[in-house]
């Protein structure tokens, strides 16, 4: 059934279809609509999850950790300062291999205080051990929540997943969304069957101390799993396509008109949608340009990106974040991916859309024009 709904509602409906047992929630703009809708569903008897109204985001993620350790499917959502406040526990959730799914309505970090969109909040949690998937439409948000549980709970993965959607720029947009049927989702996503759980009848210890003789092995294991999850993410995307006749590239990256392109624009989130429009426009002018949408930022799909760039001379990377003192995060990652390749495209970084600054077709066109020239980071203001 297709309906015009807000992207936040699409996230909430995706969560509802996955029927988590526990949803700790703490409101923060621009995420609040997601947990408000979930609270509505619980209140209206449409969802039987236990809602825990906590006193901070640190508590929200801690409660999610506890519930997930008890073997219960869990969801929470946050943004910006809320995600920053979760920082400490994010690493614990990943290290304990708890498949929590969380939506992040991406928002800038203070100071100056700013409630609008950029990717600084989730990019700053890059090394936390969470899989990070960035979406560009309300439909993709709903679909990706469902895929996220299937990826996270796969016993070869058992890692938490962040589903990142641009705050306001996507979270507050109403557009047509195909709402999946519960029985179809039940077939796609089996009930959560935890490998280990806390149980008084069968006591175990989770998250104990890792001494210098074991800690590194745990870290390597988690890292190896993150790399292996690349194949699981692809599999889940394929299975989703078989079940629902819809997919997002290979699950890790999605390309548009890249096959015969000489130049590519690489971006994440809603900037990709606007880039599609610009690609169409530039193609009409005879420019051979395409889009590389990086959906999975962690794990970073190096090989997949390299494979689709065989004939690419230049890549313009749009970063909605800045690693102060260096450059945009996606730019760093992309250049690193090509370092050992014999044939390297020119790669240029562009900082755009910070703190809610609109990313317009003109910005993307400017970035395209500049990849034919030098190679330093520039700001699109």
């Amino acid at each position, binding site marked *: 059934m*297709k*309906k*015009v709904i807000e992207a936040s509602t699409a996230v909430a409906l995706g969560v509802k279809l996955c029927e988590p047992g526990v949803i700790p929630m703490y409101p923060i703009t*621009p995420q609040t609509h997601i947990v408000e809708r979930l609270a509505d569903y619980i209140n209206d008897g449409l969802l039987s999850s236990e809602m825990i109204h906590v006193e901070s985001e640190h508590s929200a993620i801690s409660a999610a950790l506890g519930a997930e350790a008890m073997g219960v499917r869990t969801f929470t959502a946050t943004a910006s300062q809320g995600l920053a406040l979760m920082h400490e526990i994010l690493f614990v959730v990943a290290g304990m291999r708890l498949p929590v799914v969380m939506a992040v309505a991406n928002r800038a970090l203070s100071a100056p205080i700013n*409630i*609008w*969109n950029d990717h600084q909040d989730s990019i700053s949690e890059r090394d936390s051990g969470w899989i990070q998937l960035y979406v*560009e439409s309300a439909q993709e948000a709903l679909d990706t929540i469902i895929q996220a549980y299937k990826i996270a709970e796969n016993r070869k993965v058992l890692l938490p997943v962040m589903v990142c959607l641009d705050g*306001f*720029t*996507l979270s*507050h*947009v*109403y*557009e*047509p969304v195909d709402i999946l049927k519960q029985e179809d989702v039940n077939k796609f996503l089996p009930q959560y069957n935890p490998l280990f759980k806390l149980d008084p009848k069968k006591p175990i210890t989770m998250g104990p101390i890792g001494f210098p003789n074991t800690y590194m092995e745990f870290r390597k294991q988690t890292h190896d799993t993150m790399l292996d999850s690349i194949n699981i993410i692809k599999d889940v995307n394929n299975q989703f396509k078989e079940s629902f006749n819809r997919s997002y590239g290979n699950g890790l990256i999605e390309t548009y008109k890249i096959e015969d392109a000489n130049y590519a624009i690489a971006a994440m989130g*809603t*900037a990709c*949608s*606007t880039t*599609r*429009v610009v690609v169409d426009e530039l193609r009409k002018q005879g420019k051979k340009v395409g889009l590389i949408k990086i959906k999975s930022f962690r794990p970073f799909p190096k090989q997949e990106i390299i494979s689709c760039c065989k004939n690419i001379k230049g890549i313009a990377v749009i970063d909605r974040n800045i690693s102060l003192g260096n450059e945009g995060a996606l730019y760093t990652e992309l250049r690193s991916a090509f370092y050992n390749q014999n044939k390297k495209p020119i790669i240029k970084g562009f900082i755009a859309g910070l703190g*809610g600054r*609109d*990313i*317009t*077709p003109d910005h993307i066109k400017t970035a395209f024009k500049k990849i034919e020239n030098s190679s330093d980071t520039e700001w699109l203001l």
Partner: protein
Amino acid sequence: MIEIRIHGRGGQGAVTTGQIMAIAAFYDNKQSQTFPMFGVERSGAPVQAFARISDEKINIRSQIYNPDIVIVLDASLLETVDVTSGLKEKGTLIINTNKKPSDLNINRNFNIRTVDATSIALKIFGRPIVNTPMLGAFSKITKEISLNSLTKAIDETFLKTKGKKIAELNKKAITAVYNQTK
């Protein structure tokens, strides 16, 4: 694709206008997208909402700078906000006022249309609720969405949350404004 900007004041329901417009357009088998001016809403302060309606999938996600159509829910905004900002040449400007277009002193090449939605709303709701009634004028003038789809969109938006009585009043007001709009 046509792009629409809606001007109102915080609390007048400009965002809801966009939502019902997008839902109605989808009932008319068109693609649609709507979003508010992102920010902090304050009651009474000037606010904006945006919508796009297209026969094809809408990809663009930047804000709207050059609308084809502007809807003004509150004529007092004309004194403080440049509601014609970026409006395309020969674009349509639909204003809720009891004045005639020629009395508004907007001497530009726009298709300016006025409708006294406030008077109709006062008769039907007993309150100056104009955000939904103005959609009747939008439908009649632009023909981008049908009256039938608008009434369906009203049901979808209000039946569950506000009840049958409110939904019926809204439909009545939309139809009255539709009929009164030339």
